[in-house]
């Protein structure tokens, strides 16, 4: 095994702080625009997101049944990969694993917590994976928003060349970065981390109590109309408060709130579409980056007319 010959490590620019980055599969497909815009904004802020060699799917949901240890194996394997990145010198003494997807974050962080708090569970899993080195329990799981916060909102403000003036945005957090409390990145009942970032970009931030209300998650597969009703409430409430668009940091929230607007319109013919951004897409605009990195072709509701009307993009 030789993790040093992966593409990601070769293309790294020097001088930047390097973090092990866990993409998860959705960031490679329907949320490619989230990944691209996040990597670009991180780089602008002096951070290199180094993709973890041979990462594997974390399983998307944290197993809630007490005896279901086997489903934690996938997450722990990724932690071992982070240890190896340190062993091989890909990162220097950096045990903080960064995720973009909220679901991956929740799954990885919850598993890590169980492993740190329960030596017996950890031992069982290590024994099961006897061909891997043991997981030592030192990894820390970080959501990208936490990384941005740790860099400082002032630093973000300094990078802004095109302030997003007159843009009224309601940040949407969903569930997986806020709950349960033990793994939350912010106050579960009144999160502000996206507001602080958006304000640094010059956005007029609209606060709504629906920012933390679940969008229906995986029910989208079983019955899209359950999700459509939740999306209708979340979006129309934001609209009523004056929002022109939403931001999110989860590819499933994004799907449920953006693509599922099609189902919302079936049930509510008077519903007016509203764009849903990944917060990093707005950062790339504010940082004056090239339009290739925006990735708006992957958004279902095209946000370009709104951005053009505010003279924030050209075409």
């Amino acid at each position, binding site marked *: 095994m030789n993790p040093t010959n992966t593409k990601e490590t070769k293309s790294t620019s020097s001088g930047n702080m390097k973090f092990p980055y866990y993409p998860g599969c959705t960031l490679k497909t329907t949320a490619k625009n989230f990944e691209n815009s996040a990597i670009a904004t991180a780089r602008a802020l002096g951070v290199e997101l180094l993709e973890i060699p041979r990462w594997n799917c974390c399983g998307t949901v944290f197993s809630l049944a007490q005896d279901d240890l086997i489903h934690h194996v996938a997450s722990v394997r990724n932690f071992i990969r982070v240890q190896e990145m340190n062993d091989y010198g890909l990162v220097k003494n950096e045990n903080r694993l960064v995720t973009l997807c909220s679901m991956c974050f929740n799954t990885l962080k919850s598993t890590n917590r169980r492993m740190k708090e329960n030596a017996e569970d950890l031992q069982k899993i290590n024994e099961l994976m006897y061909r891997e080195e043991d997981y030592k329990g030192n990894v820390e799981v970080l959501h990208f928003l936490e990384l941005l916060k740790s860099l400082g909102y002032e630093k973000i403000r300094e990078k802004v060349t095109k302030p997003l003036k007159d843009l009224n945005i309601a940040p949407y957090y969903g569930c997986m970065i806020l709950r349960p409390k033990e793994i939350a990145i912010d106050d579960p009942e009144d999160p502000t981390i996206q507001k602080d970032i958006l304000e640094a970009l010059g956005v007029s931030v609209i606060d709504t109590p629906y920012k933390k209300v679940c969008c229906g998650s995986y029910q989208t597969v079983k019955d899209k109309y359950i999700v459509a009703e939740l999306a209708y409430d979340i979006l129309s409430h934001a609209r009523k408060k004056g929002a022109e668009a939403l931001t999110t940091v989860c590819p499933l929230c994004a*799907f449920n709130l953006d693509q599922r607007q099609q189902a919302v319109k079936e049930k509510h013919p008077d519903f007016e579409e509203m764009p849903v951004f990944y917060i990093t897409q707005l950062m790339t605009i504010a940082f004056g980056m090239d339009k290739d990195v925006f990735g708006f072709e992957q958004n279902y509701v095209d946000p370009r007319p709104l951005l053009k009307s505010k003279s924030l993009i050209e075409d």
Partner: protein
Amino acid sequence: MIKKIEISPDNEKFLNKVNELSGEVITLCEQCGTCSGGCPLVTEMDITPSQMMRLVQLGQKEVLDHKAIWVCASCFTCTVRCPRQIDVSKVAEALRQIILRQAVDHIDIKAIPKEEIACLPQIALVSACRKFTG
């Protein structure tokens, strides 16, 4: 109307099974209704989360027949709000697991139209399989 429920050893066994799988002490629930009041999916459910808790307390296996246990989206809103610190989402998971572990699926992935599968993100499909298939 008074409804008399006898708690049999069988009921006791069912309660213990759910306690064990969820890791929660279900008898601690004081039926305050906070979980039901805050549940974003409650309007789609046939019984509320607190009713689900009550049925389990009484060891009533019929709780497994209710749609509510499948409609729960594991959003953890009840988890952060229960004044008795009970994680209701884990109780719902335990109930789903009791069914799924008999190799009974709650969703037929093959019946989902191809176009729908093509547009669904992996996280949606993987999580639905994790939650709805045994």
